[in-house]
């Protein structure tokens, strides 16, 4: 959908910054994992193991910069979508926790990330519909 030149520029800048951070993440992740695999005894592994955090911090910075450039409605929509995602994810985590107590196999914590992302998408859909 067409938007003002200023908003198109802002979105492009966000995509470029985020894509840059993600590419850097991809470039750092595999060498770090390999280095740790072959240097299990090294004390440096604690520092090297945290190196992928640098591009993720850059990605977070890109998101915050985009948030600052958003107009007031977009900011409200994002905030509402995140509030929904936070609440829904908490309910999902609690549900899985109770089911694990009842005997469900333990799931990897990475599923929390998947749950949060999915609920953010659902929340974004709801807020888009609300202010369409």
């Amino acid at each position, binding site marked *: 959908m067409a*938007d*003002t030149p200023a908003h198109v520029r802002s979105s492009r800048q966000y995509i470029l910054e985020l894509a840059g951070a993600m590419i850097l993440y991809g470039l750092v992740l595999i060498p770090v994992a390999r280095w740790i695999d072959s240097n299990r005894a090294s004390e440096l592994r604690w520092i090297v193991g945290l190196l992928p955090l640098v591009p993720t911090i850059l990605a977070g910075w890109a998101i915050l910069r985009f948030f600052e450039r958003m107009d*007031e409605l977009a900011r409200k929509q994002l905030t509402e979508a995140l509030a929904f995602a936070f609440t829904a994810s908490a309910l999902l985590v609690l549900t899985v926790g109770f089911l694990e107590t009842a005997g469900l196999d333990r799931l990897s914590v990475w599923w929390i990330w998947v749950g949060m992302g999915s609920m953010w998408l659902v929340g974004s859909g709801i807020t888009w519909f609300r202010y369409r």
Partner: protein
Amino acid sequence: MKNRLRELRSQRGWSQLDLADRLDVSRQTVNSIENDRYDPSLPLAFRIARVFQMPIEELFEDSEET
């Protein structure tokens, strides 16, 4: 809150995109305000009033007013 944005914009022959550009907001924000789905903040309401060169109370109608 009801408003006269759509009517005033049409009178001037502006598209939603034109108005959004003048207000430095997205087209969706103009659309949401026109559809009474979103009430603008006070600073944005003042910007709208400046763009249309009208007092705020002539642009927005308090739906709770009797």
